[in-house]
């Protein structure tokens, strides 16, 4: 993903951001912008969802955008349940989304891969 070439907002000032964080999203190298949140990075790359719910396996992404709703959870550097809208991207971050699982067999579990320790 190349946020600099995004179609959604104004192109970011890719010049002059000498310390632009280099991160990976699901293993793919990405140049982020200084001060960008993980959600800002994902949305500017055209992503609308990056996890799915435990119960219905429904896709979720940004909703409240200010840290209240916990819909935008993502894994950063091996730590699950990080709110993408609150977390600033840092150089070297390993960001992992949990794309929608295949529909589970009827009655089967539909894990979202981002939450643990709950029944």
């Amino acid at each position, binding site marked *: 993903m190349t946020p600099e070439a*995004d*179609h*959604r*907002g*104004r192109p*970011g*000032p890719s010049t*002059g*951001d000498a310390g*632009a964080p280099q991160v990976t999203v699901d293993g793919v190298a990405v140049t982020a*912008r*200084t*001060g*960008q*949140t993980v*959600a*800002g990075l994902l*949305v*500017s790359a055209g992503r*609308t*969802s990056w996890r799915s*719910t*435990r*119960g*219905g396996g*429904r*896709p*979720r*992404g*940004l*909703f*409240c*955008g*200010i*840290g*209240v*709703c*916990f*819909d935008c*959870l993502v894994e*950063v550097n091996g*730590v699950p*349940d*990080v*709110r993408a*809208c*609150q*977390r*600033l991207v*840092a150089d070297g971050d390993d960001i992992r989304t949990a794309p*929608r699982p295949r529909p589970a067999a009827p009655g089967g579990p539909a894990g979202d891969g981002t939450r643990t320790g709950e029944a």
Partner: protein
Amino acid sequence: MARLIAVVGAGPAGMAAALAAADAGAEVVLVDAAPRVGGQYHRQPPPGLADQHAGPGFARLEAELAGHPRVRHLAETVVWALEPRPGGHRLHLRTGPADSPHRTARVLDPAALVLATGAHDRALPFPGWDLPGVVTAGAAQALAKGQRVAVGRRVLLAGTGPFLFPVAQSLIEVGAHLVGVLEANRVGATAAGWLARPAALLAGRAKLPELAGYLGLLARHRIAYRTGHAVLAAHGTDRVEAVTTARLTRDWRVVPGSARRIAVDAVCVGFGFTPQLELAVAAGCDLDATGTCVRVDIAQATSTPGVFAAGELTGVGGADLAAAEGRVAGASAARHLGLAVPVPRAALRQVRAGRGFAAALAGAYPVRPGWRSWLTEDTLVCRCEEVSYGALCQAVRQRAALGGRVLRLTSRVGLGPCQGRICGRNAAELAEALLCRADQRPPLTPAASARRPIAAPIRLGELATTPTEPSEHGFASTDPTDRSEA
């Protein structure tokens, strides 16, 4: 420390409170979750993206705070718990990247506390509101102002209240194609709300040029502003692809035959605001009659001695009112410490005028009960626990849910990670309506869902490293370098 005041929240109210208290001679710690001061209102793009100029007023405030010898700003810091102690309250803080397990822990024992925790958007449920691409107006605003990113290409903005206008402006600025702005309240109803309070209308006259400016902006971009309209449903499989809009009656029921389908890739909804009450509730502060705001007196004092509140927490009225309340609250907190503080007469006058305006605003843009008729059996009420309206109805009717807590335990509404912040008010209203229909039950108090002993998320590993006593500076910390900056 005897002269330490903690101000929680660095939006317009918190910034003003911190400066007022520090100017009066108090030592102030200003705590905020964001990397920069400003809150949601003065949200700043990060330095690399600073192509939008903040007002000169904000720049001056930010510089004044940064240069004040008695203000310490703790950025990227959350208050995750507040507990009573003899003579005051203890704040448990974590500083560091959001939701990281490696944040610095601090304990703060201030002699007085100013809560300026603000509010978040209220979103009403409707079929498909859980589809990706459906976001709150505040999310679109934060993304546009803070990240310079548009939430979508073809965007519809819907809800109620004047906050829709600055969001529309932000969306236009970042290049979104805004297909329309839908205001659920009808012009007649809105005007009636204003005319019922002529004095407040006069007090708010300074806002009229601002309003005219927004309407002009929409007209120039040929964006339809439709009153008495709402989004009834969002459609799509993995994301929103279209919405159904409709005309509403005065009480927000759908006018038959008025439904229209519009292709969009994002929908932004905002139906006013819900104050962030958890710290105030933890401090034992009384709420107002609606149960959604903290009750304060003329000095911004809450019912809990030594705890003051300012801004949207005490009633939604915009940034100017919040700043005036902050100046009063900061002065009152300093006075509580025994400092000699002149009466902030100008700020008190602004608060009085602003409150009238806020009351008129609330009267002009209410959330009307017809929204409940937009829901279907399988519309989610609680997004976290995926509780449908049908399941909620069943819990209320068949299990004879008796109150908020019982309702939560029987239906799981509000038991997810957001702790009912998104669904609490809506679920309470839905349940109350169901109970009234089946009659005989006492009303539920929305405040019940604001009782959250853990006010902000914290990881179990972090709990284990919580300091127990503050240092002589009023601080305790797990960061060995902290003492030098304290």
